[in-house]
């Protein structure tokens, strides 16, 4: 059972991503911010984290660092909307800090799902 931790503060967007993941039979654990993400992370069953970068209460970069500490082998996809700091900066930073892939909104869902499946197959 592949569980994905989905971290996104924009609720409508989170809902859409959850539906898209569920259609592919993934189990989705949701979190609205970094603090919840760290609290709900279950190392035993979570193999992939999809997280937004800019959020209130512990932003995405901190999430990536903390979760890597807890489970070094977890796969992480970072997504960002740009704007406040510029996707260029945040995303390259995310990669440097341990995200396995980065996507800039609005991205293609098909590509995100493809990457998610790719990262999870490598895991297995």
């Amino acid at each position: 059972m592949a569980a994905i931790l989905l971290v996104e503060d924009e609720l409508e967007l989170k809902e859409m991503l959850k539906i898209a993941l569920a259609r592919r039979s993934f189990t989705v654990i949701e979190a609205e911010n970094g603090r919840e993400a760290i609290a709900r992370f279950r190392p035993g069953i979570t193999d992939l984290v999809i997280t937004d970068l800019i959020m209130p209460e512990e932003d995405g970069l901190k999430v990536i660092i903390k979760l890597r500490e807890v489970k070094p082998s977890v796969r992480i996809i970072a997504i960002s909307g740009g704007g406040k700091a510029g996707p260029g900066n945040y995303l390259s930073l995310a990669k440097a800090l341990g995200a396995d892939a980065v996507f800039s909104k609005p991205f293609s869902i098909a590509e995100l799902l493809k990457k998610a499946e790719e990262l999870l197959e490598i895991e297995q």
Partner: protein
Amino acid sequence: MKRYLKKSDKPGTGKSESVENRVYSRVVDTSRSMISVINRNYRYERVNRTFTRAHKIPSGKIIGKTPGDLWGREAFERNIKPNLDRCFSGKTVKYEASFDTPLSGKRFFEVSFRPVRTAKGKITHLIAETHDVTSLRSSQKATSELKKELRRMELDYEKRLLDARKLEALGVLAGGMAHDFNNILATVSGYTEMLLEDLPEESPSSHKARQILNAVGRARSLTEQILTFSRQGKQKKEVTSVGKILKESIEFVRAGTPPQVIIRTEIISDEVNVMADPAQLFRIFLNLMTNALQAMEGKAGTLSVGLAVVNGSELESELRKEKVAPRYALITFRDTGSGIDRAVMQKIFDPFFTTREIGKGTGLGLSVVHGTVSDMDGEIFVSSRKNKGTLFRLLLPVVINKIQ
């Protein structure tokens, strides 16, 4: 030759008195003010040389007359006599007047009347002094004009500072909005992709869903422009061939160019490199060419695109910078379109300024172009003639290809 002077009222001792008189007479005569002595019958008893010169009347013809004879009955009764009387009553009187003098036209004067008393304190005469303050007045006027000008410049500077701050705030706001916008776009495109999966392929519904995705793509490129504007310059720059990007953008534009418009190119050198983000450079060229085509909409015309290299030394006066690069790539876009009005010219690089109707452009283009060019340490100049056409000149510092 001995000189005999008139005996003064005061009894004198002879020789020393005449010397004293002579010296003081000289003092009075060489004063630049008009000085006269007037008695209680309002008659001139003495006038100095400056007085006679200013009036162009010899003293012989003034002495014994009244100011009324010189300035006219009315002026005398109304303005002069009351002041003379005040002086004779013991006060020092000062006032300002302007006269038309025969010698030098309209002048401004400070007039003063000072009483002269006998040893017993009786006022027998007054000394009238008229002091020309025309130069003082005009220099005071000049100073106050300068102060006004300075104040205007200060206000202008403050306004520009405020505008710059507003622009910065706008940039931050735009950035924030673009971020939220991208979130919404992601939601729209995500659901639409799912719809496409659910709908039968090649059906009318799936076609519509595809159109939604196309629109999202266009919206995305718009938010990128907004972000470029708000972020200005944190893009990744690399050594970029201007000629290559220019040619690519021309090819792109050519596809959408109507047949009656000719595109001419004068690319002098292919090997001109600048430090830039190739995608941004492409967008700048595209923007300027699209504007040129729109200026020639509906009629025949020519768009001339040029690329040359210029020495920095030749541009020093034009580039208002401290640091001028040794060489610049000069990229020119010239159209034969409707031209830009002088009034509009001031504002074309302002964000959200547009001369187009609602729905036909956001007005972000040129402000983004300007911001991007500045960030590349370049400059952009525009010149235009109504109904003749417009010329945009882009200057970007040349870098040596690191391979060389």
